[in-house]
């Protein structure tokens, strides 16, 4: 085969090109020809196809994502915003924290172990590329029905992949979620988040500046894995009749990544790089074009100098390969020797593959012949923008009219008791220890809180005890009922979880998982959810610093529930003041904070007891969320509470069971005559236990602190209702039922191993 050089492309304008097979649309191909003034070479076509894919270009979503910038609240903590590898916030004492959540959904369904493993690897390199030492990871996961045979294939593979890769990197896994729902059967959601810490002066950006500076590719050799991962895999709907897409999934080597981390941190320490970018989706195409596009000059790359695992790879394949564990750095010529020496120390292969040039072109050569000559911005930052049509689905009204309040409720105390047991034993509410015990949560020796706590928390300074916390949440059922409100509820829950641990919520990252953007109904869900999230971030003062969009999560016509997963990062001045969820001390008083209303739409109760999804999700009151958070943080700082647990899916009873099991102590509950300002649930044990009203938490207050705590709540106007006391070895709801902790423990902990192990 002759090499398709720029010269050859100019001479053969009418040659047939496989733009459709590479996932490009006809008008996109026409635009490439217009930009270049000729047909693209094979290598150029490969680059545009991956960089203009939905996954890399956000072409369907960016008109909506703009709101995160436009509505960004004033926030002095923001150091680096959307657009870089990850956002960076100031957490005080000279420290900066970078964090982000990403998806690796499609690969993880095809090849669960490698898909999930490389998802961890990718997000960790994003964080590393900002100049930070990665300090923790979290994994929000969603699978099909827990008892479906395919879940037994996907889940253990995903969990082993996350563990196999993350454990080998030495990063504590401190949080995340596991949710089961039939809507994720063919489209599991495997999201991965990472937190990194650095000093302000260590922030690095992805740009290539300074004519004559060298472009160094370092890390693993480039192989044939993951070719077209972003375009072929992540940007199309699964078609059950199509060919297996396994070759598009990358294969990870965590040992290589660990070396890459330590090597890169040493390089940062000696201040040897002018710009840096990790190689993830779209591989070298992405790294070279983004670095050049963000920089001041052009770039020249000798592609044949790239170290290969497979010598037969074509230039197009090298440009598209998504081989893992690679980074690309821009280094001043006099620092190259030292850079290469550090790589040698860590047994990391490093190669100078090009340099920053004076012009404004990205030029790539293959054995001396030019195969790419493009304006880098046109590849990296000026991809197509779609204003996709969107419309509220016809079925939305009927769904919302199907009110969960009409569902039959327990007729007596025995039935109420039975439903409590059913709820805590349901896979969604059951203990996830079988999964999280496969992750190392102790490594690095800074883990203060990890799952099943409300948020994960790590200490970042051993002398001052400064710490950061992160929680991720998302409820696809709520979001299906009302995308605007559902996205806000996801944020509210993560925000509340961070505050319940005693940390102050600071900033947000999100992973927006939706169906096909080509479906106007899905696009409406996306538009509503992003609008809701942007509005709520503005109100709560927590800016979105970056994130990821995953579309095409659907098989055939059936999309997943719209599932925005929201991560909130918080800061705590002294980790000694952190609040755990465990009710561990007998005699402490249990207070319910917030209002309990009749809110059952999308609830765990409606799912577990009635397999029902309908009505409206709980109302959002962001002012109340802010007040609740302030109270939780103050109470933690001043030692007024010994435990706190947010109320979300499963309502009060679920939170109570978790806090009691965690602390190994029971509780006696009295159904109060009032439950906050609203009295719709007053005196009603069923609603008190199962309603999912937002803006609530339970806390354990030592008797000596009761007056001080209730005075504070009273003065600030937060309803605080005393509902019981930590006591005994059972959960006893006075006048209703009692359940021994041992029985709850067996149900709560036995479910997942029983289904999956």
């Amino acid at each position: 085969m002759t090499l398709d050089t720029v010269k050859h492309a100019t001479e053969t304008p009418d040659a047939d090109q496989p733009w459709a097979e590479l996932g490009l649309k006809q008008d996109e191909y026409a635009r490439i020809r217009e930009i270049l003034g000729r047909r693209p070479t094979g290598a150029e076509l490969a680059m545009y196809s991956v960089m203009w894919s939905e996954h890399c270009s956000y072409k369907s979503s960016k008109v909506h994502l703009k709101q995160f910038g436009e509505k960004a609240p004033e926030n002095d903590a923001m150091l680096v915003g959307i657009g870089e590898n990850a956002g960076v916030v100031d957490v005080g004492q000279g420290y900066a924290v970078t964090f982000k959540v990403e998806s690796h959904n499609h690969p993880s369904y095809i090849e669960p172990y490698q898909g999930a493993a490389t998802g961890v690897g990718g997000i960790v390199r994003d964080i590393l590329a900002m100049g930070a030492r990665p300090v923790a990871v979290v994994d929000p996961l969603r699978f099909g029905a827990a008892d479906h045979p395919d879940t037994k294939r996907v889940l253990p593979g995903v969990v082993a992949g996350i563990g196999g890769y993350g454990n080998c990197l030495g990063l504590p896994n401190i949080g995340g979620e596991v949710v089961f729902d039939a809507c994720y059967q063919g489209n599991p959601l495997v999201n991965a988040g990472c937190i990194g810490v650095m000093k302000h002066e260590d922030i690095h950006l992805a740009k290539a500046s300074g004519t004559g500076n060298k472009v160094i590719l370092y890390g693993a050799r480039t192989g044939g894995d993951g070719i077209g991962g972003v375009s072929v895999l992540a940007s199309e709907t699964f078609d059950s009749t199509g060919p297996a897409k396994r070759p598009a999934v990358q294969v990870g080597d965590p040992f290589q990544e660990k070396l890459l981390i330590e090597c890169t941190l040493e390089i940062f320490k000696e201040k040897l790089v002018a710009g840096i970018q990790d190689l993830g989706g779209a591989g070298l195409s992405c790294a070279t074009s983004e670095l050049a596009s963000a920089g001041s000059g052009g770039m020249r790359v000798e592609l044949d100098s790239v170290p290969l695992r497979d010598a037969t790879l074509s230039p197009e394949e090298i440009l598209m390969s998504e081989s893992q564990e690679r980074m690309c750095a821009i280094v001043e010529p006099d620092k190259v020797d030292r850079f290469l020496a550090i790589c040698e120390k860590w047994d990391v292969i490093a190669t100078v593959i090009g340099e920053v040039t004076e012009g404004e072109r990205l030029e790539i050569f293959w054995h001396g012949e030019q195969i790419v000559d493009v304006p880098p911005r046109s590849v990296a930052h000026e991809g197509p923008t779609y204003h996709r049509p969107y419309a509220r689905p016809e079925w939305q009204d009927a769904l919302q009219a199907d009110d969960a309040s009409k569902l039959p409720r327990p007729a007596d105390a025995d039935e109420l008791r039975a439903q409590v047991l059913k709820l805590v034993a349901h896979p969604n509410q059951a203990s996830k220890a079988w999964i999280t015990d496969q992750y190392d949560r102790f490594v690095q020796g800074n883990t203060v809180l990890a799952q099943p706590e409300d948020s994960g928390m790590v200490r970042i300074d051993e002398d001052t005890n400064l710490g950061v916390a992160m929680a991720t949440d998302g409820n696809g059922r709520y979001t299906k009922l009302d995308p605007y409100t559902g996205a806000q509820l996801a944020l509210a829950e993560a925000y509340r979880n961070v505050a319940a641990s005693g940390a102050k919520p600071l900033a947000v990252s999100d992973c927006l998982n939706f169906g096909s953007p080509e479906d106007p109904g899905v696009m409406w869900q996306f538009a509503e959810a992003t609008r809701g999230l942007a509005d709520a971030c503005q109100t709560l003062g927590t800016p979105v610093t970056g994130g990821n969009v995953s579309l095409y999560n659907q098989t055939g016509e059936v999309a997943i529930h719209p599932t925005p997963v929201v991560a909130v990062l918080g800061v705590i001045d002294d980790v000694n003041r952190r609040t755990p969820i465990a009710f561990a001390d007998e005699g402490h008083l249990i207070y319910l904070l917030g209002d309990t209303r009749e809110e059952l739409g999308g609830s765990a109760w409606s799912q577990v007891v009635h397999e029902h999804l309908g009505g409206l999700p709980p109302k959002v009151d962001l002012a109340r969320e802010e007040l609740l958070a302030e109270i939780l943080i103050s109470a933690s700082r001043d030692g007024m509470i010994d435990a706190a647990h947010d109320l979300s899916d499963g309502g009060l009873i679920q939170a109570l069971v978790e806090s009691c099991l965690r602390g190994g102590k029971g509780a006696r509950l009295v159904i109060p005559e009032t439950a906050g300002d609203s009295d719709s649930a007053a005196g009603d044990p069923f609603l008190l236990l199962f309603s999912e009203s937002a803006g609530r938490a339970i806390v354990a207050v030592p008797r000596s602190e009761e007056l001080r705590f209730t005075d504070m709540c009273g003065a600030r106007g937060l309803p605080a209702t005393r509902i019981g006391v930590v006591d005994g070895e059972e959960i006893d709801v006075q006048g209703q039922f009692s359940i021994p902790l041992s029985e709850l423990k067996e149900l709560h902990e036995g479910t997942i191993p029983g289904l999956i192990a």
Partner: protein
Amino acid sequence: MTARIGVITFPGTLDDRDTQRAVRVAGAEAVPLWHRDKDLKQVDAVVLPGGFSYGDYLRAGAISRFSPVMETVIEQAKAGMPVLGICNGFQVLTETHLLPGAMLRNNHLHFICRDQKLRVENAETSWTVDYTSGQEISIPLKNIDGRYVADDRTFDMLEAEGRVAFRYLDGNPNGSLRDIAGITNEAGNVVGLMPHPEHAVEPLIGTGRTDGLGFFTSILKKLVNA
């Protein structure tokens, strides 16, 4: 002058910085040692920390034993220098034959991370003198290749000579024969165990217990009294 305790970093070592911290918390000086370097920098004792050295793609610890630093460690250990191998470090010590037996994949085939209760069976080694014989402690356990095996003759010898240093309590987490969590050599200077004492040296961090600190105060006591 306090004791100098070396902590080796192999490529793929993960708990080196944690171990250095534990050494410091106990009041000793932590000295980082590099796998390519034969020089032990005149340390008084060495810890081989946990992790996945060289990725453990072949067999846990199998490649590390051939590293330059291990040549000196083996030589010095035989001459009586205290050596502690934690998790991957224990695996390396069995590969070098400083300790008998071998480690297989956990019987349930999964990585397991949990708080693990142990009984200190031998409180006379260089690394356990600050415990009492029969003392029960809880420290984190985290591994995938933690199933300790040996032949019956080795077991009988270990038991007879009091060389089983730690045993799992309240449930064997990985199928280790005779519930063995850690062992010592005959002289008591070389100790290996699968659980991680370095993750249990500060209140609030990890499990919130400090049951692991005794390993590091033990060696300090041993070295200072020596």
